[in-house]
């Protein structure tokens, strides 16, 4: 049952992504309204699918990498809908939904990566917090991309369709800052719990695990960006470049979990 629901939800995300991208180019208000509806409908189906899965499994659907990524996609879409309304940022979907779609496509739950020996509340909290952090950083990435596009328009002085659709630079910079400030504590706490948990479960904090190693790198990039922003007056283009770098490492981290052998996956 959850498989079918999930498939339909993914089709919904495909439609929403297509509509959001079409809106970005065409700027037809109708397309935007349809994209919002499709997003909401797909998200509701996704919610039901996740609940059904949790009931089937008798545990939170967070124990395997594909499951966790699916939940991450779910949080991303939730944040996207919320921020879009909050900031009146009608083009946000075009930048966030493609990422959410790619994430949700990984979630064919065929592989289990954490054996049944590993469980317990700490594990769920570790994964849950890390996922919320990652979701916020997806939004951070989208904000940075939009910032760079708008900045390029204003600098090149050749105003294309994006100049009209994208919001002000100040707004986009604020968005990237806030999503980072929101996501970073989640990511940090999630990682610390993971490290502590690894210490007890695997016997060592520094076992060779691709996902764990890659996530430390991502954390360092984000920590540096946040510190630079808070103390060094980093902003605008530089902060945006770092947001994109951080996201690239984060994507590697998730891929490592999905495709490489290691304690998290394989």
């Amino acid at each position, binding site marked *: 049952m959850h498989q079918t629901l999930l498939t339909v939800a993914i089709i919904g995300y495909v439609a929403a992504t297509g509509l959001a991208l079409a809106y970005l180019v065409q700027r037809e*208000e109708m397309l935007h309204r349809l994209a919002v509806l499709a997003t909401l409908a797909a998200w509701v189906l996704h919610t039901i699918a996740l609940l059904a899965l949790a009931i089937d499994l008798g545990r939170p659907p967070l124990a395997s990498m594909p499951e966790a990524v699916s939940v991450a996609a779910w949080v991303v879409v939730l944040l996207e809908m919320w921020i879009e309304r909050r900031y009146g940022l009608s083009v946000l979907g075009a930048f966030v939904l493609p990422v959410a779609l790619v994430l949700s496509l990984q979630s064919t739950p065929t592989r289990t990566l954490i054996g049944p020996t590993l469980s317990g509340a700490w594990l769920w909290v570790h994964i849950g917090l890390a996922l919320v952090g990652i979701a916020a950083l997806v939004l951070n990435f989208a904000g940075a991309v939009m910032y760079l596009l*708008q900045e390029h328009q*204003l*600098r090149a*002085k*050749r*105003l294309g369709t994006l*100049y*009209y659709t994208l*919001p*002000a*630079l*100040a*707004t986009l910079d*604020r968005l990237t800052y806030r999503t980072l400030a929101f996501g970073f504590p989640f990511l940090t706490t999630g990682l610390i719990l993971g490290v502590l948990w690894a210490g007890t479960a695997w016997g060592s904090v520094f076992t060779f695990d691709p996902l764990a190693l890659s996530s430390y790198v991502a954390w360092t990039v984000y920590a540096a960006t946040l510190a630079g922003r808070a103390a060094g*007056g*980093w*902003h*605008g*283009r530089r902060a945006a470049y770092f947001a994109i770098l951080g996201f690239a490492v984060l994507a590697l981290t998730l891929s490592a979990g999905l495709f490489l052998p290691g304690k998290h996956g394989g």
Partner: protein
Amino acid sequence: MALFVSGLSHRNAPVELREQLAVEEDKLRELLRDISSTNAVREAIILSTCNRVEVYAVADVPGEARTVMFRRLCRHRGVEPAAVEAVLYTFAEGDAVRHAFRVASSLDSMVIGEPQILGQVKDAFALAQSCEAVGPALHALFTHAFAVAKKVRTETEIARHAVSVSFAAVELAKKIFGGLEGKAVLLVGAGKMSELAARHLVEQGVFPVYVTNRTWGRAQEMARALSGTAVPFDEMSTALAAVDIVITSTGAPEPVIRRELVQRVMHGRRGRPLFFIDIAVPRDVEGTVDSLDDVYCYDIDDLKQVVDANIRERVREAHRAEILVEREVAKFLAKLGDVEVIPTIVSLRERLEAIRSGEVKRTLARLPGATLETREAIEAMSTAIVNKILHAPITKLRESSRAGSPRSWLELVHELFGLGRR
């Protein structure tokens, strides 16, 4: 009876001719009365702006009405009729409706989306009304045109983006800073255009305003005009550090604002963006300044390019507006059918209502002891009878008008119910 519009505009007539033909308000009244007094025209509205002179009219014989009206117009203005008739365009019925909607929505304007035309059309309508030249058809047409114009304005972005250099600069500032509340501006040099741009910025909440000029007196004068503060010219770099937007318009032959200066100023700003609007020719801001981080610099040519982009944007939106107008034309034409029969329906209702209320009054006068309920019952019953009787003829009239042949039915109804001559 036919609806038509006839006239000339910036599209087909040179400005000299438009100027000659343009009518001022007093003359317009005279002309409208003059035209109404001839039997050639039933209803008329004259729209006279610097870009168009048009007559919207309803007449039995449109060709004749058009000739009569423009002959009179030419006579009033002392223009050779032949020159006017050579360029005159005429749209009838559906095309006239479309033209009225397009004009009111500013789709036919020289600058698409300009906001003045709707006001001018409204004024023309009001003036014709005060001269009693407006009947049911033009009333319906123009009220619908106003609604269409409003719809076009709200549902498309036809008027959204600036087509003047100074407004374009304000929009750019918004795209950089978001809101402009509390952003500070510095004017370097004092020209008409920079004053205008500064005023637009102040309207958006920009505060405070600093003015500097080589001539101290001129700086003070301009500062007073803008409720700002005058700054001595050699303290410009201090002011640069404090503001977010700089408008330059000096007549200096060499750049006044050098790269080194801006670089130094940016150092202390901790990344706060600085936006130069350089409307001076030759330029006041050195060309290489805009390669600095967080510095945006638009000279007059850049701003003109932005305006061009905005105009393309309006043209794009205009296509959407045309589709909207087309839908409204269809809607209106369906309604217009009814317009012809509505006066008859109204007088038919009035006639029967007069009979009903008269009879009820007489009956009640003969029933002094009737209770309130009885009176109400009699009222209700009589009203019901009238409505039932009216139902079939009204439906028939509406149907016939939609089928396009209401005339014989209208006459029949007038005869049968004794409504008098149409």
